[in-house]
């Protein structure tokens, strides 16, 4: 169990951000932090990892205090059992892939964990290469493997997939889910991709201007906001195509395995492009019900 209350005033572009966050994360949970950029999501991860010191609050992990402002406990990042995957990967440029992983080993730790990670993440053919010769997706796999070498109590992922194309993103999501289950990890993912959160997380915190505005299961929080009245159906899908039909547009959306076409006006599709994750809301006024059995 991880409990954290974090308070910090952050200097941001155009003023200050008063961060005030409370998190309760069960062991083995997959939690997502969702919100616009600049809302303070990355700062939360950094405070959990010990890279940023909160002004007030406490962080307790399985009963051990990592941070406690009242008792003046501040564990440095070195003493926190954390795996951190940075947005820009942060691989060590002078080391090969394998060296990046062995560097992470603790004193006296056996290397078989590295062999296992290399196998799961299919890094075998890449292990003697330097990071600057790898693609974004390959670098991200190395960063993920490196973060897991020390068997951390907490895995922190800071928008790890935002720079990748859709196909690579799906593949890496599967890797992350596989590792999360295989090692029974407790994982926190920062993401602004609704589809990704729905697919991966079992709990989501929506962060707006440094505060948690909503939290719960991804489907309940991200899809059915309180402003939408009863009598509607909401589904998340991927935008496949936008086709002009006179004054209207026909929008093709992939809902998991089902492709549907939706009629839309110019204002509806403003700012949308192919590949976006979209929420399809349909009214259920006058639905046709048919008895099947």
């Amino acid at each position, binding site marked *: 169990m991880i409990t954290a209350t974090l308070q910090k005033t952050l200097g941001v572009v155009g003023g200050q951000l008063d961060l005030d966050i409370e998190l309760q994360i069960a062991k083995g949970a997959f939690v997502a932090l969702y919100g616009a950029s600049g809302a303070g999501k990355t700062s939360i991860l950094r405070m959990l990892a010990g890279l940023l010191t909160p002004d007030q609050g406490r962080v307790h992990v399985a009963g051990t205090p990592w941070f406690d402002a009242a008792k003046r406990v501040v564990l440095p990042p070195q003493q*926190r059992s954390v795996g951190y995957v940075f947005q820009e990967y942060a691989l060590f440029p002078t080391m090969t892939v394998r060296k990046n992983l062995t560097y992470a080993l603790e004193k006296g730790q056996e290397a078989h964990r590295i062999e296992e990670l290399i196998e799961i993440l299919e890094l075998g053919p890449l292990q003697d290469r330097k990071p600057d010769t790898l693609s974004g997706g390959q670098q991200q796999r190395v960063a993920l493997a490196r973060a897991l070498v020390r068997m951390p109590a907490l895995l922190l992922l800071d928008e790890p997939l935002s720079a990748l194309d859709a196909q690579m993103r799906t593949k890496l999501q599967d890797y992350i889910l596989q590792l999360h289950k295989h090692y029974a990890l407790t994982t926190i993912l920062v993401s602004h991709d609704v589809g990704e959160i729905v697919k991966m997380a079992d709990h989501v915190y929506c962060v707006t201007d440094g505060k948690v505005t909503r939290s719960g299961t991804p489907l309940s929080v991200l899809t059915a906001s309180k402003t939408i009245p009863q009598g509607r159906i909401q589904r998340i899908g991927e935008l496949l195509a936008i086709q002009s039909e006179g004054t209207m547009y026909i929008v093709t959306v992939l809902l998991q395995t089902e492709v549907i076409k939706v009629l839309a006006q110019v204002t509806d599709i403003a700012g949308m492009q192919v590949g976006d994750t979209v929420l399809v809301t349909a009214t259920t006024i006058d639905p046709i019900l048919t008895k099947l059995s």
Partner: protein
Amino acid sequence: MIDWSPIILTAKLATLTTLLLLLIGIPIAYWLATTTARSKPVVETLVSLPLVLPPTVLGFYLLIAFSPHKALGHWLQQYMGIQLLFSFTGLVIGSVLYSLPFMVNPIQAGLSNLPPSLAEASYVLGKSKLQTLFYVLLPAIKPALLTGIVLTFAHTIGEFGVVLMIGGNIPDATKVVSIAIYDQVEALNYEQAHLYSLLLLGVTFCILLVVYSTNGKHLKHFWK
């Protein structure tokens, strides 16, 4: 026949100065690149002063500080048995101060340009600041280190004013090549002056060529 002793002395002085500055310069550069202390601009200014200060000014102050009639010089001579004026040891100290920015500035710039996440990734993996510096940060700024080493070496070879002020012209102790040239010209011995000058020109040209071609990635495969 050419007298080799000033050349050997110059090489000895430049090598020793470079090695010492590598030891001193890395901690100073690391501190400057990571600190948020208010005293940072003051330290930066002190380190960079030799870039703009006439060498004679530095030499003049060292002359006074090293003088056996002043506290520091007196103490060193009395209790440590070290004489800094008109000695090779004094020359090394003068050179270290004089070439300090040429070692510190490139390393500081190199460290500052690295993304902060590199060091942070290492900390999160349980590695200390020292381990991070030696295994992650310094290897990542090899070109900057090379620049610092080479510029320090070349700059020490070209030193004249400081040596003149605190070293004088003592064969095998303080008579470096730049002083020897001056000496030979004064004695109207132009042939010797030519030989020394040509040698310095050739050596410094080659050294700078190495720096610029390395930073231009031409020698990347040798270096990586």
